[in-house]
């Protein structure tokens, strides 16, 4: 599964959007939260989790 962003923890800082190597994370229209806009294109690399200051990103491998 692609990266999962916990919207309760996300403060909308935008760092995951900025650094995603695949351009799959975007901010919501009101820029308050980050979202995985292209989930089929996630590499599961973990870059967003490394950078997230709020520990809001997780991965599940079902």
């Amino acid at each position, binding site marked *: 599964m692609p990266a999962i962003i916990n919207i309760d923890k996300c403060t909308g800082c935008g760092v995951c959007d900025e*650094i*995603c*190597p695949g351009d799959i994370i975007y901010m919501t229209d009101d820029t308050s939260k980050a979202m995985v806009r292209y989930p089929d*294109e996630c*590499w*599961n690399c*973990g870059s967003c989790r*490394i950078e997230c200051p709020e520990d809001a990103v997780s991965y599940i491998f079902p």
Partner: protein
Amino acid sequence: MNIKTNELRTDVLVIGGGTAGCLAAMAAKQKGCDVTLVEKGGSIRHSGSLATGVDHYSAILGEGPWDTPEAFVNKFASTRPGITDLKVVSTYAKEARKIFGFLEEIGVNFKDAKTGKYYRIAGLGGRDPHTICFEGGRIKDVFSAYLGKLQVRLLERLAVEGLLISSGRVTGAVGFHIRTGDFYIIRAKSVVLGTGGATRLFPSPTGRDFFTHAPPFNTGDGHVIALRAGADLTNMEFTFCSVSPRGSDSPAITGFIGMGATFVNARGERFMEKSHPLGDHAPRTAIVNNILKECAEGRGPCFVDCRHLGEEAIGRITKGILNERPTLMDFLKHKDLDMTRDLIPYELREMETQGQGIKVDENCCSTVEGLFAAGDCTNVGLAVSGACTLGYVAGEKAVKHAAAIKDFDDDLQQVNKLRDTIYYPITNPGNIRPIDVEDEMRRIMSTWVGFNRNADGLKTAIKALKGLKDNSRAMMARSFHELMRANETRNLIDVAIVIATAALERKESRSLPAHSRTDYPRQDDEHWKGYIIVNRGDGEELKLSYQPLKTAN
């Protein structure tokens, strides 16, 4: 459509912010050139194969008779059965120590925290401990900080889709911003390609085609723009393949094997020694082929066995994974795989292109004047230290070339032609999503261009791929992100056609399972110990030629 155009000039343009590209930009800027580094992804801090870090680096440090440039080249010659130009490998071996020192100078810490020394292990391809284990989790931060200090001009989220050529010499590149859609014309005196390999060519065994071994955003962009500019590609029939824990994307073999883990079959037998004198330390291609063979003969599945290892070794393996691919630890946990208790099931990955491609000489120059290349987009794949070392060399040579060029080119005719092609899926949208075209390409590749190739199948594949290429004109893009994917899909189809065409030409089998012809199952050194060169000739059709290997191999 209203697209803004930005035009800029730079002495050296580096395309690709991965390992090779970063080092090329550093080398060029240090020589006082004006340098522009372009990256397709969001940030060079998380792009390329080292997007989430690295845990090992192959070095030549003179710590013993085995640890010299000469010994390395000799060993390389005996462990790589494919077609390799040892002149380029010699450049790497000669420069490796200098570049290693440079990396330490800019802040990469290769020393082991526990001992304060280099902690070296034997990886794949030999039993000599060339590989340094280190905490390289944030190595791209180090690169990024140094490039910032040097004030290299950095353009991120810029997809380069064409090279500019004048009188046979490269004069720049064009591309677009993947969010704003802005068009970029970058005029340059020299260009360095560090665009990586090509993934997404074959279906991923995980069922998710972006969950690939190498970055799924490496789509052969450099291969294709170089080919269209007249450069030679070579070794393209040798499709690279690795193995990884079943259902995951990250091989982690160097870490496992280097710390003493072994491959075993379903009967618990160690089997690598049977087929290769280096056993578990065999070159990656041999490891993959041995696993394929073991499973084909009914002794699969195969596993990595770490259960005999002590706490220290397990700790180092874990730390290595966390430094290079932290999500692999989540994967093992979620699959309830404990390396101290369980055998880790390993499976073959999708085939890809990595270290096959743009033919470079010992100066990292392609066959087009002013066009340099390093790393996985070239025909010399030497992993991380190769990308660092040859990337740096490419940057130095690019500066030397740029110094002899007086003026920038200002031709607009080819710029406009390229611009029309790049934006076509958004200016003339058809009814087909890029992903549907790409999925069909993967189906063609896995049916006829995978592990078992033959003439009939390859001819079918080439015909099908050419038809698909025509049909890809009906791709639609509803955003600039989708425009990037549409251009990637087009590039991948071109790479796929080159692979199938070169594979049809090479009437032998070599470097199994990279090129396995069921109709020519033997290696034939008499006729095929040499390069198959692919270039575009004067038109759209590919032109093939054969070049015997000059250096001993």
